[in-house]
């Protein structure tokens, strides 16, 4: 081993980066070479000055807090959901007030709006944690029987995979204090919750599209079923979903 080779390997030796074989070679060279032995001593002396010194810095608490505070809010999907949740919190407060009767007269006209609010809140809840589906399957023949005995009427479960909407599963949710079927579909990264409950009348009403707390809700009524499709999908895609579902239902 030459001194040039040894010089750089001395650092690796001091840093504990050499395997046993190489370390032995370097040490053998140092034992026979006074120059390299001197270099190694200097290196260890410098190290002795650096290592015991307080050279680190502790991150100040305010920095830690700021980062922790900013982290979830800095992610766009979380940010929009947080904002939507705030909006909903107000809606829920209004609903709670309504229950006292004070706002009854006002809210009576807004019955439809209140149900929409609850539908959107149920959609939001479903996106939190593991709340999305109680039965997880892309097979409509698994999902539909799951509702048997859980609801008074079995909801329509359609396979729309060929139409670009993947069935993920289903769960029971609560809207207006009543259990309601929620069937979950996915379009790319977007989740669609389709809520359905039996209607009092068998008639049909045309679909309406509304935007609430940043989500789109398409509601309609056909074959004696009330349906609400909720998603952050664009309105035209959500309309497409509704139409594909209706087509499958009619078929």
């Amino acid at each position: 081993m030459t001194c040039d080779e040894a010089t750089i390997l001395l650092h690796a030796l001091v840093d504990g980066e050499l395997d046993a074989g190489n370390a032995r070679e370097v040490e053998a060279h140092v034992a026979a070479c006074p120059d390299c032995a001197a270099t190694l001593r200097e290196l260890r002396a410098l190290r002795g000055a650096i290592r015991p010194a307080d050279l680190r810095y502790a991150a100040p608490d305010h920095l830690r807090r700021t980062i922790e505070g900013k982290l979830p809010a800095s992610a766009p999907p979380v940010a929009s959901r947080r904002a939507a949740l705030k909006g909903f919190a107000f809606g829920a407060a209004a609903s709670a007030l309504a229950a006292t009767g004070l706002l009854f007269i006002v809210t009576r006209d807004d019955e439809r709006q209140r149900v929409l609010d609850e539908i959107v809140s149920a959609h939001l809840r479903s996106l939190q944690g593991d709340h999305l589906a109680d039965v997880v399957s892309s097979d409509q023949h698994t999902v539909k029987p799951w509702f048997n005995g859980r609801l008074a009427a079995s909801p329509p479960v359609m396979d729309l995979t060929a139409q670009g909407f993947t069935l993920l599963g289903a769960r029971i949710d609560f809207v207006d204090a009543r259990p309601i079927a929620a069937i979950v579909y996915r379009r790319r990264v977007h989740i669609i919750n389709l809520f359905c409950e039996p209607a009092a009348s068998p008639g049909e009403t045309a679909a309406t599209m509304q935007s609430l707390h940043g989500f789109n809700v398409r509601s309609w009524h056909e074959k004696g079923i009330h349906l609400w499709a909720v998603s952050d999908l664009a309105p035209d895609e959500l309309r497409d979903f509704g139409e594909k579902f209706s087509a499958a239902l009619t078929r």
Partner: protein
Amino acid sequence: MNGVDRLTVSVGETGHLVMTGGREFDAGGKADRFKQVALPHLDAVYTLARYLMRNRSDADDAVQECYLRAYRYFDTFRGGPVKPWLLAILRNVCHGAHSENTRLVYGEDAGDDEAAAGPLWREQAETPEQTAMRHADSATMRRLIRELPAEFREVIVLREINDLSYRDIAAAIDAPIGTVMSRLARARGLLREAWLASGDDE
């Protein structure tokens, strides 16, 4: 469709079915996971920032930006050690700040608050004299390291203070291990000269 079509179904701790996959339901868990793996390295990241940036508030800003960026990139982080990954991001933030505002320290006097900055750890049972001596030595050594050219300063901080292996230093500064070794040897040579010279002055 990058990765969003993956959907994992598993049985969670509560016995409920858990679905993960796709950004939409993962957002809450992502932040938690990120905090769990990234926040323990905050002191190391902050230390490098303090040596690369001119003053405390610029270092604060750089560290904040580093963590926000790291969180954005977290989806594309494919395992491996987190510390060099974070330090590489911090380094990019600092270099970016330098090109915009020339705030990166290049041998400028950066001793704005040496006395105020508390040490991270203390040796036990030292006499007041020893404490005073060590403080003097620490302040001198910090200054000497700050006065090194940036490319040598960062390898010294990563190796001697943040205690990274050669491999992790190579990852953090995005250079081959050979470059790390030669830079570290040169950096120690420069630091030793400066250290001996400072001893002569005092």
